[in-house]
């Protein structure tokens, strides 16, 4: 699965996710990637999120919109909201995976409970940051 959240110079947020699903899946199984609110969400009022993980858990928790709701309605900063949903709630359910997220003010977060996640971020005038493993 791949995903992107972008903030443009007009202050607009967008999020997108694309995937091939899971290996050897059957019965027309659909994961969270095409499910708005679960694998992808964006609102200029809060944040944008793209997810990757075991989709059934991301769907039941509506992970992407849940993170944005915590930012919008409870005033959490983006990293805290992301960690609450991924490190606490998703992990407690037995789900695994991660997210990348971005607010209209340019705040960036990622959170994952797997050993690693292919991830990258950049802001205008800033240096690119690329990570793979959990300890970098």
């Amino acid at each position, binding site marked *: 699965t791949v995903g*992107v959240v972008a903030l443009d110079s007009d202050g*607009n947020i967008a999020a997108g996710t694309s995937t091939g699903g899971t290996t050897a899946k059957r019965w027309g199984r659909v994961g969270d990637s095409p499910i708005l609110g679960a*694998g992808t969400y964006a609102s200029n009022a809060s944040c944008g999120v793209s997810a990757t993980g075991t989709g059934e858990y991301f769907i039941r928790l509506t992970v992407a919109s849940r993170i944005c709701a915590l930012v919008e309605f409870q005033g959490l900063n983006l990293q805290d909201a992301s960690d609450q949903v991924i490190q606490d709630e998703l992990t407690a359910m037995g789900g695994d995976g991660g997210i990348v997220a971005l607010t209209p003010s340019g705040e960036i977060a990622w959170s994952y409970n797997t050993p690693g996640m292919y991830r990258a971020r*950049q802001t*205008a005038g800033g240096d690119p940051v690329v990570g793979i493993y959990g300890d970098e």
Partner: protein
Amino acid sequence: QSDWALVIHGGAGVIERGQMTAEREAEYRAAMHAALDRGEAVLEAGGSALDAIEAVIHGMEDDPLFNAGRGAVFTAAGRNELDASIMDGATLNAGAVAGVTQVRHPISLARAVMERSRHVMLQGEGAETFAIEQGIEMVPPAWFFTERRWASMTRSLERLGLDLPERPEGAPELQGVDHGTLERDEREHRFG
């Protein structure tokens, strides 16, 4: 406040130091840098966040390293079934597609659903009919084929005791795949 910003993922899983060759790690890092470069090119020129999303994901959908587009994993039936979604935070408009098999860039079809239909989500054959009507680039299913994903799927089916599907029409001749690569691949890309 930044003028623009961009954050990208290429999948999560059991990705650990020492489990990946230096060459493969370098390939992934280069691919992630290239993804940032594509997004930066759009955003630095004043392009929209939606255009940046599409530009970044197009490259990843064409890159066999990632489980999206070319390089997608196989279903138990031996098919590549692709899903994508996109959402515009300015309007809360959104589009999604599920289970398409012949659309080169599913993210562009998701955007077309958002911008050129009154629906939010289309799936399977109907989604592909819409894609053709909208002039979205179509490719034969074999376009998405990669040997490592095919081998990974057959190993999974053998473990489950399920019948193996026929090799897809148009797929290249059988090539050898290193078993260490397969095991790493299965750990890294379990998700969708």
